[in-house]
């Protein structure tokens, strides 16, 4: 319990304090991240001997739950670790920004939401954290909101993921309805058609968050945010949410859903790999690479080996954040991340370049770096899966492409004019060094991790590692030696445009939505005019009534008045002035009324 509180509340309280005090953001931020890390370590230590749970009041009969199982505790530790290093780096990167408090505050709220998602024990908590992550990343991507294109990048990121989130909403509603409870572990017992439908709906949600084809476009544009944001978003957090969701519900997924997940992942690994290879901007290359690596994780889930996906998620988190932090340093030096601008930037900073290169090799899958082991696990899973005929070629192609685009990035950074010697950057280097070290050594933890999760991967002798290494090396060689125009040939222009089909999402979703809106507006005008016309009609009815008044009724009334006057003259004779006579008439009148009243029930 205490560790759960530490893990979630320390970043939350630190973030809120920063936003309120608006000072000491670095110190508070690092303290919050450190305490969160302590909490996550504690969770991992205690979760081994039994789940840690906290039940909070939520909706009636649907309490909110936080739960630390070995799986969720590992993920929480991963998030806390990466967040700690990225924050360290950010203290250097954002040192001169006048709106630091807003940056650090939002970043910590983002970390809080991510921990909430990772540790969620019920669907409402998961959904809430899921959407809060979207909101926090909207704020972070839009951090420099005054700049050109930033608002639209942030808007796009939120809208893409929100559209896909409908899958999560519907999937969660379905599972809660079928199981009668909102507790995730209880709903995972769902079987049959509901499980298949829910699985496919959750896949849609995961595709949005993990930027899978065809919803990958927003991620590359999300580069509009500060680099530490990209490093965090692309490694253990925002993008990871989709894969984490699928890993967590994997026990429930039936064959059909698994196949769909594997195919989506495999296609993304290849398509996004091609986009990355064709990219002319270093950060956008890394972003496309994120999609493609998450594609590989989905392949693992689809192959029925979620633990392989988890291993790759962990390895990728350390690797990709290292790469982004490195790219951020080059961006700092050259004020841009286009390939032309950063050419030779690596040679000017050999230390940072070495870190970047180690991470790149790790991502490609060179032993003994972390990516080698996790990629092997995925290849092994694809090989043994019932749909190996689909998944294995896609996985290998994805692996070759990974080597190719990383080889190309390394070449660009190394060749070219190194320029003047840049100044030192101790904080940024520290943050990055920590993550690179993780990218190197994490592979050693995979064995114990598998044991802890009771999901050991089968051994394959030398065949699988050899296959993986061959793919990685050939990819790296191709990327380093062959220019990209030679590699992609006819595909190049298409890949450069991100494989946009039929105008992309804008044409397929935004324009129809706006057209419907315009249609509603036209209908709205018509309805409004209709009501006004109705009003006018009744008005003219009123006017003709007035005319009738004047011509007919007034005439009638004045006529009546004239006649009444004459009648009055005659009636004067009745009113003789004698009291007894008038009294008699009155009495008769009243009697008539009373008789009429009493008689009425019999007459009706």
């Amino acid at each position, binding site marked *: 319990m205490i560790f759960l509180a530490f893990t979630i509340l320390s970043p939350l309280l630190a973030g809120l304090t920063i936003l309120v005090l608006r000072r000491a953001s670095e110190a508070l931020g690092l303290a919050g991240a450190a305490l969160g890390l302590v909490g996550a370590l504690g969770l991992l230590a205690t979760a081994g001997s039994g789940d840690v749970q906290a039940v909070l009041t939520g909706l*009636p009969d649907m309490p909110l739950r936080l739960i630390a199982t070995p799986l969720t505790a590992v993920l929480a530790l991963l998030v806390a670790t990466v967040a700690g290093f990225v924050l360290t780096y950010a203290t250097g990167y954002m040192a001169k920004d006048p709106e630091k408090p807003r940056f650090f505050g939002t970043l910590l709220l983002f970390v809080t939401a991510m921990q909430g998602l990772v540790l969620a024990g019920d669907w409402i908590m998961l959904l809430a954290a899921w959407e809060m992550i979207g909101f926090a990343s909207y704020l972070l991507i839009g951090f420099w909101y005054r700049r050109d294109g930033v608002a639209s990048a942030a808007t796009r990121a939120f809208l893409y993921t929100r559209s896909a989130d409908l899958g999560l909403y519907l999937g969660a509603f379905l599972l809660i309805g079928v199981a*009668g409870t909102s507790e995730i572990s209880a709903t995972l017992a769902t079987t049959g058609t509901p499980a298949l439908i829910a699985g496919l709906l959750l896949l849609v949600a995961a595709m949005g968050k993990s930027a899978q084809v065809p919803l990958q476009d927003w991620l590359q544009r999300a580069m509009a945010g500060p680099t530490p944001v990209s490093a965090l978003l692309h490694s253990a957090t925002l993008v990871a949410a989709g894969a984490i969701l699928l890993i967590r519900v994997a026990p429930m997924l039936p064959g059909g859903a698994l196949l769909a997940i594997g195919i989506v992942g495999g296609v993304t690994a290849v398509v996004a790999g091609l986009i990355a290879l064709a990219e002319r901007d270093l950060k956008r290359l890394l972003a496309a690479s994120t999609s493609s690596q998450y594609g590989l994780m989905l392949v693992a889930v689809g192959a029925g080996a979620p633990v392989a996906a988890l291993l790759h998620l962990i390895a990728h988190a350390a690797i990709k954040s290292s790469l982004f932090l490195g790219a951020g340093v080059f961006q700092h030096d050259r004020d841009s991340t286009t390939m032309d601008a950063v050419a030779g930037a690596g040679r000017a900073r050999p230390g940072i370049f070495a870190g970047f290169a180690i991470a790149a090799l790790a991502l490609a899958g060179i032993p003994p770096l972390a990516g080698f082991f996790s990629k092997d696990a995925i290849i092994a899973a694809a090989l043994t899966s019932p749909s190996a005929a689909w998944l294995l070629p896609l996985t290998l192609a994805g692996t070759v492409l990974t080597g190719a685009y990383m080889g190309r990035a390394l070449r660009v950074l190394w060749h070219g004019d190194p320029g003047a010697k840049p100044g030192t950057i101790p904080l940024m280097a520290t943050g990055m060094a920590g993550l690179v070290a993780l990218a190197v050594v994490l592979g050693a933890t995979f064995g114990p991790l598998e044991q802890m999760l009771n999901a050991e991967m089968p051994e394959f002798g030398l065949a699988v590692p050899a296959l993986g290494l061959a793919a990685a090396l050939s990819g790296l060689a191709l990327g380093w030696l062959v220019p990209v125009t030679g590699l992609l040939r006819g595909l190049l222009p298409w890949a450069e445009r991100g494989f946009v089909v039929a105008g992309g999402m804008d044409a397929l979703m935004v324009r129809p939505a706006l057209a419907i809106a315009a249609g509603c507006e036209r209908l709205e005008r018509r309805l409004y005019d209709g009501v006004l016309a109705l009003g006018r009609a009744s008005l003219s009815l009123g006017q003709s009534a007035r005319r009738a008044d004047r011509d007919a009724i007034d005439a009638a009334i004045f006529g009546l008045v004239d006649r009444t006057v004459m009648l009055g003259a005659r009636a004067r004779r009745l009113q003789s002035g004698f009291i007894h006579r008038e009294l008699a008439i009155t009495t008769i009148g009243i009697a008539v009324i009373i008789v009429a009243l009493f008689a009425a029930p019999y007459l009706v």
Partner: protein
Amino acid sequence: MLPLLSIATFLPILGGLVLMALPDRSARVTHGVSIGVTGLTFLITLAIWARGIVPGGFAQIEEISWIPAIGAAYRLGLDGLSLPLVLLTSLLFLLSAIYSARVTERAATYVVLMLMLETASLGTFMALDGLLFYIFFEVSLVGMYFMIAGWGYEDRQRAALMFFLYTLLGSLPLLLAILGLYLSSGSFDMRVWIDAPPLTGIAAMLALIAMLFTFAVKIPAFPVHTWLPAAHVQAPTAGSVILAGVMLKFGTYGLIRFALQMTPEAFTRAGVVILVFGVVSAIYGAFAALAQSDLKKMIAYTSVNHMGYVVMGVAVAALATDPAMRVVALDGATLQMISHGIVTGALFFLVGMLQDRAHVRDMGDFGGLLGQVPWLGWAFILSAFASLGLPGLAHFPAEFQVFLATLNAQPWAVVAILAIVVTAGLYLRSVAAVFLGELNQKWAAMPDLDRREMLVIVPLLILTILIGVAPAWLLNMIHTTMASLSF
């Protein structure tokens, strides 16, 4: 025991009468009286809240005989449906009074109208007598008519007349339904009508149709919603807040209190039709809002969308076979009314504050204001995300419950969930257009929120977060009644 319900109901109008009798009716004194009276009323409603409600019926009943010959009496009372609405009403009137403190044009008349409206609104939610309810219901129209016609913008006369005619004609069928209920039961006591619904068969169906017509105009549901954007655009800010925050709830309150509770059988039979109206309103409202560039009109249309969810929730409750889902749907629908009052209230206040500064409301006229007016900007962003249903903010728990029940009772109707993407799109677009990007130099001297404005907006933002993060304090009250509601 003090009759707190009656005191809360009539204190505002008494305050108004006292104000009319005062020799000094300067703006200062007037607004002092207004804030004092609405503040006191708010405190009294808090005391009413403290006295609490009971499951399975009405609490804190106050009854005085009135026209015994026809079984009409002065009866007030509360349950978990009306108490949250009463609290919302007294809060929004207090905040409107604070916000309106800058109105100097015929201030005394304005304040008296507002106070009259508050009495009518509180009375509508607390009346337990059919005749009394109808009187309060109608009086509120008059107040709002004069409010729009007297203190609105350019085209206010026509908008006010349209509002008045629309809702007046709309409410006549309700009178027929009330008379029908009376004739078949011999009483105007709403508790009698609820405990043993007097109408059956075709009579019940006719009464239901009549009531639905009235409440659909008030809610408003497609296609009788056209008065809403017109009235909102022209109404003064406080009028918009009261109209959206309080008066639209007359419709949804009536939908549950009258249509569902008094003609339950017919309601279930017509449930699918009602659900269709809810779904269409929700989707149509969202798309119509997407087409607007006038901020106020856009928010007005999102009301059609949000109230559509309420209609869906009530219809799903009638149609659901699983009793747990019925309660979930009704909890969600009722909470949605409160959330909408708070969030949309905040949005109308914020747009009003923007208009006070710029005298325009079109998104395209602004740009990059976040750096210039950070408080206003962040308040708007928070409220906008609340309105688009972000978890952790007020609309999420309500919409979650409505959609959860919908998917499990009438799966097709869940298509309305598409609207949450459309509202996300339209709010993000407006935030980007008004607050992000390069600062439009025209507004380089725009001041941020002052103390009075903060006082108005901050409580609403706090409630938005509080309901989103920990809805239990409010939902438990609603749940107490909804779990024991028999229909």
